[in-house]
Every structure is written in structure tokens, then in C-alpha cells.
């Protein structure tokens, strides 16, 4: 899923697009559309909206391609635009429902603790349909910023410093998103929070 190394084909595509050849855009769309739609979908949790966001992001990229410095990563430049647009779109939709209306499931809390703990650790969970659904349900309870932080970290495999750079947000803000995501889930899941959590520090 992850595409990180710019290929010769990608460089050519960017160069063609800078010269006004839309065939270059077609190449970039073909290369990044799936990753971009998935990124947006995981933040806004709506396929149609995700596709709209990515289409707009490609059009913006085409319009601003002359600003793009080819020494940088197109992937990072483009996906940053997708993440930012998805956050804005989600906030506009005001999709978050009041806390008391959230689904509560006592099985979510250890899953979320594991998901949000940034420390690398051996696997505690085997991927099953059930654990996937618990992750999804828990993510529904997060804000767009917090979901975006998780997607960037785990789906796009970005480090905190990269997230800070690509989103043009201070490192303190990125850490804030990750930390408040954990705290928010803890609040939501408090009725079911009966386990001891002695190692709660993130770093």
C-alpha cells in the first residue's frame, strides 16, 4: 500500500504536468488515488466524500504543480493536502455526536490503548474481523484531527516529526492530537475501564 520512493515515471509525470500536459496528472492519479482515497476515507468515514476530497486535491495539485519543488516527495506533498482537506470536510460535517450517544463496548478499551500507545511493542492482537470492527468503532469516537493523527502515524507510516513538517503544525500540536485521542477514548470508555494501566506515559 505504501508508496514512498518516487519513480522515474513519477518524475516524468510531474515534469509533463508542469508543461501543461494533463497526461502527467493521469499518471499521478493512477499512482496515488487508492492510497489517497483510503487516507481520506479513514478520516471522514464516508467513501463518496473521500472520493470528492481526493478529486479536489488532485485538481489543486494540478493547479499548483508549478509551486512543487521536485526535490521533495510528491507523495508527502499531495497526501498532506488530502489529510488537511479531510479534516476540514469532517469538521464541516460536524459528524461527532454527543458523548452519551457514542457506542460503548467494553472490549474496545484495551484495543484502543494498544492502538494509541506509540511505543513499539510486540503484537497483542491478531487481526480478526472482530478486532477490526472494534478499532473502527473506537475511531468513530475521535475527532477528525485525532483520526488524522492515527492515520498518518499508522497508515501512512509517518513519524511525529514528519507529521509536524508535512501538516505544517508544531510538534506539540501533533503530540496533542495523539495524546488527547487517548484521553478522549479513556473518557468515553470510563464505565468499562476496570483494568490497571500502570504504564500510561506515552514517551
Amino acid at each position, binding site marked *: *500500500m505504501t508508496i514512498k520512493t518516487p519513480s522515474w515515471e513519477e518524475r516524468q509525470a510531474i515534469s509533463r504536468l508542469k508543461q501543461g500536459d*494533463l497526461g502527467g*496528472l*493521469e499518471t499521478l*492519479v*493512477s499512482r496515488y*488515488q*487508492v492510497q489517497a*482515497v*483510503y487516507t481520506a*476515507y*479513514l478520516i471522514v468515514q464516508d*467513501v463518496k466524500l473521500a*472520493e*470528492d*476530497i*481526493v*478529486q*479536489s486535491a*488532485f*485538481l*489543486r495539485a*494540478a493547479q499548483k504543480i508549478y509551486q512543487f519543488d521536485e526535490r521533495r516527495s510528491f507523495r508527502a506533498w499531495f497526501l498532506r493536502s488530502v489529510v488537511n*482537506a479531510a479534516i*476540514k*470536510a469532517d*469538521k*464541516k460535517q460536524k459528524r461527532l455526536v454527543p458523548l452519551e450517544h457514542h457506542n460503548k463496548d467494553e472490549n474496545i478499551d484495551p484495543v484502543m490503548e*494498544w*492502538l494509541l500507545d506509540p511505543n*513499539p*511493542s*510486540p*503484537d*497483542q*492482537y*491478531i*487481526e480478526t474481523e472482530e*478486532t*477490526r470492527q472494534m*478499532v*473502527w468503532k473506537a475511531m468513530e469516537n475521535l475527532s477528525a*484531527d485525532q483520526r488524522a493523527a492515527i*492515520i498518518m502515524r*499508522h*497508515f501512512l*507510516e509517518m513519524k511525529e516529526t514528519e507529521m509536524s513538517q508535512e501538516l505544517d*503544525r*508544531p510538534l*506539540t*500540536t501533533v*503530540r*496533542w*492530537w495523539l*495524546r*488527547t485521542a487517548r*484521553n478522549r477514548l479513556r*473518557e468515553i470508555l470510563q464505565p468499562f475501564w476496570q483494568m490497571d494501566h500502570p504504564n500510561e506515559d506515552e514517551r
Partner: protein
Amino acid sequence: MKKNDTIQSMLIHLAQDAVLPSEIDLWPTLRAQLVAGTNVHERGKWRSIQSQRVQHIAYISLISVVLLIFAFATPQGRAFAQNLLKFFTRAENNTLPAQEDYKVPAEGPRILNVTEVQSLVGFDVLEPAVLPEGLTFQGASHTAETNTVTQQFGSSPEDIRLSIQQQPFTTIAACDLCGLVGASASVQIVQIGQGEAEYVEGVWELTANGPAWRDDPYLKTLRWQKDGMAFELIYMGSELKVDDLIVIAESLE
């Protein structure tokens, strides 16, 4: 399989459950839009939301009042004190006698970074490791008279929303960050890490008859002590709640 790989795999499968890669083909629509010269973005579909901060300017002045009162909570003010709280001192009622001489300790020049202010004080100045979006460091200052360091955060120097003060704690009488709250103020005991802290919403408002306490959720103050230091975190706004302020307080390092 490592943890991150598992999470990534789950996220991919969650996305694939919604739409398969083979079903994603944006190019025909994009090409049509490019040919037509329109797109959803231009139609203003994603107009950004601008937050309203109507009350902000008014409350800037209240911060000044708070600072005055911290100075005012000198021996005369503290004569009213009850030792029911650890970090705030509760006044006997919600008004204080008017005084002609409010003496505010002279604040040193605002210094642009913590390293510089650190060089003026004999203790480690702690900085927050996490901050909500829109709050960035705007400057620090040192008040020599009370040996208090103030760090300010906001979107710009003209839009300060958060301040964190730190002072070595010796005695309650010498503590500049232990001033009065109104008799009716609701002081909430909260946990910051392993220690206790106190949280209050409200402000001393200057009136013709002297300062009067007013409960106000817009002005939030959190006080605590740790390792011989007194801390005070003041936030002006409605976006952050007490739990958010605790997150910031716990991240000081």
C-alpha cells in the same frame, strides 16, 4: 508481525471493506472536470470555517485584573484567608475592600525564548510538550521581585490565550501564585500525574467598590505544586476544558 504492521493491515482492510482498489477510478471524473473547467473546490464546497472569538478582546482586560489581584493578595488580602484549599486561598466573601495603591510587580521585558529566561532564574523552566492547534509559544518573561517566570501561548503576540507561570515555592506568604478566589468560587480538586491540583473558573472584576468575584467559564485557572515549584496555568477561552488543561500541565518537562 509487528504492532504497527498489524494496525496498518487493519486500516487497509477496513478501507477495503468499504471500497476495493479496483473500484477506485477517479480519472474519468477528473478529466471531465478539467475539460469543463470546474471543480467542486471552486464551487466553494469546502469553505473553511472561521472560528468566532467574540469575547476575546473583552477578556484580555480581565487578565490584567487577575494580575492585579495576585499582587493585591498581599498580607491585607490574606487576612481574610481560610486554609481550606492548598493552592488557592478562599476569601471570606465575593468582594474585597477597594485599595488606592495596587502595586503590580514590575515584569521584565518579554524574552523571546525559554533559554534566555532560564539564564535569569535559578531553576529549570518547564515547557509544555503538547499544545492544541493554534497555541504556539509567543514569549516568556521574568518578574524579578517574585522570581516568577511567565510563558505565553497563542496564535500571535496579540492573541495570547494561555499563560503558564512558575515560581519556586517557599511559604504561602511568599507565594505569588496562591492568591485569593471569591468565597463562592467553585474550586475543583483534580489530579495532575500523581499529585493534586485545584481548578477554578472565574475572575476578580474591578468595580467602583473594589474587586468583586465573578464566576466565569471563559477564564480558567489551574494551580498545583510539584518538586518545590508552584505552577499556575491560565486559559482564556471556551475551546479547552479542564481535562485539556490537565493534559498540558502533565506534559510540562
